[in-house]
């Protein structure tokens, strides 16, 4: 038998349990409180290799570790930062990037042109499976770096290695000059270079030519104003500290702790309690109390998020343009932005975000104006379906506004409308691919670089990467392409605006809202601003004491 007294055992077990629960704790770090550092909340980044970082959390961290070739000014025009100059040839096909001298990586290596070429080749090479690989597709030779599976994705055969390992369009002319040859002319290519994937990687990143060194991602070495302090503490935090004698713009703080949160609401709780300095996106449920909690430390700034719903072309009941117009007119955008989003988003009446050059207000015209009577008339005339659905992904904050939108449609059109939540976005896409009757699909788009083309191309062109609803219009595709190869950015914008006008007539999607950054900060910091890409401006932010 185990023992005469079960009670002693029980007490003993409790004691052991408590001891076990208590051990390993107590070594909390209080040292950061006094130094000149700030803490900023993020979610766990998926990756920190620049060419594999396409979500905003990783991009925010990388912005502290790297110094980009170009950045964007108030008018969202590209300005050289780590680059001395970026100049195209006459046809806008070959671009020459001159680097500023004197920059070094955090390990002491000087930053040379070859560092950029190596990093980009790595990102573009198909078998590396980098998420940002499509950014290099406009550079000559990209197709040769991709492999095709001979018997389709499901087939058992392995794909052969791609034809080439290096982009033919990339060349380090000397230590400070990169020559980029594009596959087709692109007048606004300079803006593209501002994206995260175009950061350089040091020689130390590679263990062999084209092979990343093991563990590099956890202790990444960049060329930016801050360097890693220790390694990436997954799901906990990433600490960075100021680089001594940084050649570029020097930040006013000595370091940043990127605190990792699983949920925005937890982040907000810490912000209010003063355990976190900056939150870049305050959750919807907390908006109502944010002014009371934070006072004037609760602020808004524009960002590039464009929210809309799409009509799947495989559902015939939406093929009549009047049905699409009617549904759009049945939605009271202003009421939803006021009541659901408490003014943190604004009604969208165009097909691109207001932050890009070439944006015109209200290109959607009457189609995006709330007019329940006209909506009902059009809908009845076109014999629109009696049942409508809006499908959304339940892991995002969409239920509230989808339900509200459905209620408005119900009231205006007198049809039944239900919001259907799928567990995640991939489930939604799966259903769309199987051509299931999903109804209207909730979509959103955050730009990669500030150009109209970055909305028009991926969202509405036939081959667009995020054109999940299957919209296709040859005139539109042609105009977008002509805009890309136009001689000047101004001519490009003119073409793109013509393309947008086609959208306004055809209504392949219903523009709903333009989102903003709704951010808050603690009393410890000041001069906080959040840019179009939802990143905190790390060069301006200061500690108050």
């Amino acid at each position, binding site marked *: 038998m185990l023992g005469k007294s079960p009670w002693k055992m029980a007490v003993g077990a409790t004691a052991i349990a408590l001891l076990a629960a208590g051990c390993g704790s107590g070594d909390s770090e209080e040292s950061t409180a006094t130094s000149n550092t700030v803490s900023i909340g993020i979610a766990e980044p998926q990756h920190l290799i620049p060419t594999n970082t396409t979500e905003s959390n990783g991009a925010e961290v990388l912005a502290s570790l790297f110094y980009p070739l170009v950045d964007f000014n108030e008018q969202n025009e590209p300005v050289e930062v780590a680059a001395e100059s970026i100049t195209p040839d006459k046809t806008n096909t070959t671009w020459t990037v001159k680097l500023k001298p004197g920059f070094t990586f955090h390990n002491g290596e000087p930053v040379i042109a070859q560092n950029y070429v190596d990093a980009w080749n790595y990102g573009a090479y198909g078998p590396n499976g980098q998420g940002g690989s499509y950014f290099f597709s406009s550079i000559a030779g990209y197709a040769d770096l991709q492999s095709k599976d001979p018997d389709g994705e499901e087939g058992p055969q392995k794909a052969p290695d791609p034809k080439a390992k290096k982009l033919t369009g990339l060349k380090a002319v000397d230590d400070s000059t990169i020559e980029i040859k594009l596959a087709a002319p692109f007048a606004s290519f300079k803006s593209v270079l501002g994206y995260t994937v175009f950061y350089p990687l040091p020689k130390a990143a590679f263990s062999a030519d084209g092979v990343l060194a093991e563990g590099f991602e956890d202790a990444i070495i960049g060329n930016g104003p801050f360097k890693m302090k220790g390694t990436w503490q997954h799901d906990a935090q990433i600490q960075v500290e100021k680089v001594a004698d940084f050649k570029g713009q020097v930040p006013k703080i000595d370091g940043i702790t990127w605190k990792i949160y699983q949920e925005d609401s937890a982040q907000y709780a810490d912000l209010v309690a003063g355990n976190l300095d900056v939150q870049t996106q305050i959750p919807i*449920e907390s908006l109502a109390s944010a002014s009371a909690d934070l006072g004037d430390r609760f602020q808004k700034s524009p960002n590039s998020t464009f929210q809309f719903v799409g009509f799947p072309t495989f559902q015939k009941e939406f093929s009549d343009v009047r049905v699409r117009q009617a549904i759009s007119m049945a939605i009271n955008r202003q*009421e939803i932005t006021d009541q659901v989003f408490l003014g943190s988003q604004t009604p969208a009446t165009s097909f691109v975000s207001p932050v890009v050059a070439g944006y015109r207000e209200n290109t959607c015209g009457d189609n995006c104006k709330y007019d329940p009577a006209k909506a009902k008339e059009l809908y009845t005339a076109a014999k629109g379906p009696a049942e409508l659905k809006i499908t959304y992904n339940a892991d995002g904050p969409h239920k509230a506004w989808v339900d509200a939108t459905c209620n408005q449609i119900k*009231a205006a059109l007198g049809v039944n409308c*239900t919001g*259907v939540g799928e567990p995640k976005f991939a489930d939604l896409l799966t259903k769309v691919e199987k051509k299931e009757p999903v109804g209207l699909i909730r979509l959103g788009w955050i730009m990669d670089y500030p150009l109209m083309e970055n909305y028009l191309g991926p969202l509405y062109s036939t081959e667009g990467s995020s054109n999940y609803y299957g919209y296709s219009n040859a005139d539109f595709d042609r105009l977008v392409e002509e805009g890309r190869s136009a001689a000047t950015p101004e001519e490009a914008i003119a073409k793109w605006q013509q393309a947008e006008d086609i959208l306004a007539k055809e209504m392949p999607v219903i523009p709903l809202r333009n989102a903003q950054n709704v951010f808050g900060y603690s009393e410890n910091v000041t001069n906080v601003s959040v840019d179009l890409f939802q990143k905190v401006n790390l060069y301006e932010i200061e500690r108050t004491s």
Partner: protein
Amino acid sequence: MSDMNSVTAAEAPEKLSAQPRRGKSDKNRSLAGDAWNDLRKSKIFWFAVVLVAAVLLMAAWPSLFTSADPNECALNRKHAGPSGGAIFGYDFQGCDVYARTIYGARNSIIVGIASTALAGIIGIIFGLSSGYFGGAVDAVLSRIIDIMLSIPFLLAGIVLSRRLSSDPNDNGLLAVILTLGLLTWTSSARVMRSAVIASKSQDYVAAGRMLGAGPGRLMFRHILPNSIASFIVVLTILLGVNIGVEATLSFLGVGLKGDAISWGIAISEGTGFARVASGPLVWPAVFLGLTVLAFIMLGDAIRDAFDPKLR
């Protein structure tokens, strides 16, 4: 569909206690008769009966309680206070909280009762066989329970609900019931098993066996009625938990779908805005709490009446 379920539900507690009644019905003063005499005098029993009856009525004919349409919502009434027929005010979407609470009863009650009944039946079969036969049967069944318990609820819940309701027009009710039933029977089975192990070694079982009673008779006539006390407690609690867990499933996008109304959904939606408006959270929660309370009290009262040891 819904009416069928509420009927089985009303009978469920009685079914559990029906065994001893049949066993001794030939006697003048049967156990059931004794129990009924006890129950009649119990205030708690009548209180619980009235509450349960009210909730069942609400689930069956919500229009008896309100004439408002729970699906008529308008954003311009967001979080508005009580007015006219909407005595509980309006929720975030501007829907009538009172009407939605009344209409939410049906889905919540069906989910709670049906999934608990399913869990109870599986639990009895597993627990009883496992505890009674012991040895190899116990080993195999216990390991199956171990496997079930070690599979995270969330994973199995998401997979089951996603795969069980492939029909896009289905509101997901059946999938939720099956998911909850198939995933929550383990605790009742384990409690049943240990109660059976404990009562197996009691004298009356040994006596029954000596008198030549077969395993079926011993299990269902002697051991089950005497082991059922803790089991009923676990089940009535499970009922309350399952009504609430439905909300969690809906929260993850795999629960009731579309415009289905339930207390669980209302509660989880109300939580986010608890600081701004408490009504949409509090009222469905009160109804849910009272329902769970009623079922637990009913279970307690019936058990007390039927358990000869508590006489």
